[in-house]
């Protein structure tokens, strides 16, 4: 086998050195009765060429490339500059372990330090970690962090937070005796402030909202922060489309205490949902409760700057059951891709990217709502996603659009009663005018 560079001759020499006659003897500690008596029932080994053919064939069963899609809802198609793939594919980034030996891991560590800095700049907060698994687990970790900081059992989650994020929060919190309360939304698509006020009391640790939320609507973070803080609670904001931060004010500057989210938009392909990239940032005073790895700056014995993993007394390998989280392996390589992506775009590039998304979504919304019977469901301001209401059940319209090669949006009826006629539509820079117009034309024909 080409990945096993030990020859029969090597084997013989090594067995002699060890002082046994066969490799079999080395396994004598495994009781006879649990050892396999026959080979595993697996397919016979394939050559490299056959492996490639196999996956090429299976790939053909993914029949989506002939469709034009307008799907988002927590996973976004954005342009990925060539340098991102090229640089991130280097062996030196792909094949090291977590940087436990900082003297020979300065590349990874410096990249993490840059990533943390970029996340702080985008979120307007003081501290960011090295990454979390994804936006959903990030939201759950933010809730748990809020609970550790305030030690009150009531946790408020807006119902317009991505349904998958809410499901993961529920899975994480239900074994811990915590009370998760969902806050309704109003006709703007934002959190219903009256509903929030009714649920927010001084037994609340944290309010979690998403902005732009699952309906694409931008929340009023400043007033949510005020409401939460007045009751002694923290405001956690989860962001699933961080390209929006190229235009929108940093949530940390509007009063958010913890900002977490999904950074797949920054240089990671859609990949059927993974690997993605969770991030988290918080105020300086909360750093000891932050989950996950953190890189920090220090000096070597000659006084030169270097980077190390630090504040590890928060982590499981030191604190065991008292750790802030059980996370160990995270999404380091995804964070590297995001770092390269953001540094490629830079200050003006990210602003422009956000502006392109905003403008194209606005154009698409305007064109689509010019068709009879199609209207915006919510009145709140949006970034690159919006909810439209159709004259008929979305699933019927969706089906007819698919016949015309258009995947026009995501159904909302499964998760929200009353939104059966609605769809969440996402438009990014990858949609040129021609594509948007094709969608409008197809919908026009479907509705006719």
């Amino acid at each position, binding site marked *: *086998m080409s990945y096993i560079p030990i020859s029969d001759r090597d084997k013989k020499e*090594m067995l002699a050195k060890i002082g046994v006659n066969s490799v079999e003897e080395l396994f004598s*500690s*495994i009781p006879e009765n649990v*050892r396999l008596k026959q080979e595993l*029932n697996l397919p016979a*080994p394939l050559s*490299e060429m056959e492996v*490639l053919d196999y996956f090429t064939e*299976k*790939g053909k*069963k993914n029949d989506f*490339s002939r469709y034009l899609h307008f799907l988002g809802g927590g996973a976004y198609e954005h342009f990925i500059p060539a*340098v991102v793939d*090229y*640089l991130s594919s280097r*062996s*030196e980034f792909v094949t*090291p*372990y977590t*940087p*436990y030996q900082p003297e020979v891991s300065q590349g*990874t560590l*410096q990249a993490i*330090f*840059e990533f943390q*800095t*970029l996340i*702080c700049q985008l979120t307007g907060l003081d*501290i960011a970690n090295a990454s979390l698994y994804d*936006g959903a*687990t990030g939201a759950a970790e933010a809730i748990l962090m809020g609970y550790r900081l305030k030690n009150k059992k009531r946790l408020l989650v807006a119902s317009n937070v991505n349904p998958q994020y809410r*499901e*993961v929060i529920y899975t994480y919190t239900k074994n811990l005796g915590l009370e998760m309360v969902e806050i309704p939304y109003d006709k703007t698509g934002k959190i219903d402030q009256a509903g929030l006020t009714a649920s927010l009391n001084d037994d609340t640790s944290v309010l979690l909202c998403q902005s732009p939320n699952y309906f694409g609507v931008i929340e009023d*973070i400043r007033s949510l922060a005020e409401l939460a803080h007045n009751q002694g609670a923290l405001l956690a904001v989860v962001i699933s489309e961080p390209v929006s*931060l190229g*235009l929108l*004010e940093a949530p940390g500057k509007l009063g958010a205490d913890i900002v977490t989210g999904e950074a797949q938009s920054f240089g990671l392909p859609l990949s059927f*949902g*993974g690997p993605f990239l969770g991030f988290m940032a918080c105020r300086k005073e909360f750093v000891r409760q932050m989950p996950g790895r953190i890189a920090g*700056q220090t000096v*070597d014995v000659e006084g030169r700057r270097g980077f*190390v993993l*630090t504040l590890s007394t928060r982590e*499981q390998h030191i604190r*065991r*059951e008292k750790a802030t989280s059980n996370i160990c*392996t995270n*999404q*380091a390589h*995804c964070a590297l891709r995001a770092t390269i992506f953001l540094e490629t*775009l830079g200050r003006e590039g990210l*602003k422009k990217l956000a502006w392109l998304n905003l403008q*194209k979504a606005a154009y698409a919304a*305007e064109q689509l709502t010019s068709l009879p019977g199609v209207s915006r469901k919510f009145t709140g*301001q949006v970034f690159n996603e919006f909810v439209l209401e159709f004259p008929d059940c979305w699933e019927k319209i969706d089906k007819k659009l698919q016949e015309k090669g258009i*995947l026009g949006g*995501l159904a909302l009826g499964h998760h929200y009663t009353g939104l059966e006629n609605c769809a969440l539509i996402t438009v990014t*820079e990858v949609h040129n*005018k021609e594509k948007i117009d094709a969608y409008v034309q197809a919908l026009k024909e479907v509705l006719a």
Partner: protein
Amino acid sequence: MINLIREPLIFEISSPGKSAVRLPELDVPEKKDLLSGVPLRDDIEGFPEVSETELTRHFVRLSQMNYCVDFGFYPLGSCTMKYNPKINEKVAAMPAFTMGHPLLPEDLVQGNLELMKFLEKLLLEITGMEAITLQPAAGAHGELTGMMLIRAYHTAQGNPRKYVLIPDSAHGTNPSSAHLCGYIVKEIKSNERGTVSVEDLEKEMTEEVAALMLTNPNTLGVFESDICQIADIVHAKGGFLYMDGANLNAMVGVARPGDMKVDVLHLNLHKTFSTPHGGGGPGSGPVAVKKILEPFLPVPVIEEKDGRFHLNYNRPLSIGRVKSFYGQFLVMLKALAYILTLGPQGLREVAEVAVLNSNYIRKSLEGIYHLKYETPTLHECVFSDKFQKEYGVSNLDISKRLLDYGLHPPTMSFPLIVHGALMIEPTETESKRDLDLFIEAMKAIAEEAREKPELLKTAPHVTYVRRLDEVQAARNPVLRWEKTS
């Protein structure tokens, strides 16, 4: 050569007006006054501005400061730093797999679902388990998921139970995951062989214990030979046997956890199944279970009917989601490509050579470094710095000196039951030449410890940076760059 260049942070080489990419111009009519009333930012303060040349050089220089498996031996114990085959990367980069949105209609992603289902099937055969979820993102996430399954089962019986038993040799994620699932952790002491004491376990195992979490082979590389008896003790009180599969590389193709009465097992695709660690992830941590726990698996579950694949969300007993979408899909593809390349014999050879390599190192360094436990080991061996301590040299010094020899050190100071531990796992992908290089370096360092201990205490000497002040990093945390002027 490259080490002569001190590469600054990107923020320090930034200058206004530069960008490494050109975005297209707006091709729809611009609308003014969008977002009126919404707080906007004037600027992303401090965000870098560099050209593509500067960006490329920055990251190439950073990359050259990293040690990696493609460069050399990386014997981190319990981390299974094996070679990452390149065909796997090529497969995972195919547009058919990278371009698919996770919420596409099922009909359009039949290839993805089929491949995931097939990987599930192969992993079940390899582990001897009966049902599986691919959703967890990494090993610790798998542990948490596994403990949630156990808790959901007990809860359905009317009592979630209070305790989880964990040996003192366990990885820190075990107690942390159990705690995050609402359990109180009770530690089981290891016996003089370095394995679980059956007597202790019998004493601690009550009907308030939900599960025993066991790593097998354990973190000393020792196989828990009493595994079936251990399982019986746990089962007799209605508890579950959870196996941490971090060390599965030691027995793949040789023995199966499912045949050892294990009820729940997490796998690390980024260890046993060769997917790269990426400097700390992404990993992938599937959880395999016995039938009795199947109803509790996370949603969605992939089902096959008449050759079509379908995601089933309607599972009333499910613990729910542990992650968005379906897990680390591209990582799964790499693991599948690996299994298909190796086949049954190849996988068995993995365990055989991993164990051979480890025992070769153990034998070669015996007497030169202290071995606390004489018990035979499989894929890894744990020495300590006891002999070198006489000269004031610690495991840290030995590790740092190894860097001067161009080698990556073993895992340090773990497991906790061996003071000054050096935990060595060579894996099967190392040649005898590379093993000998490591052995000779370790011998030379033992010699240096006697002759010139200062050389070790001040190591490393030839790396890009020398020994870093970790105490200062924690005491005065500088966790981001900030503009100074």
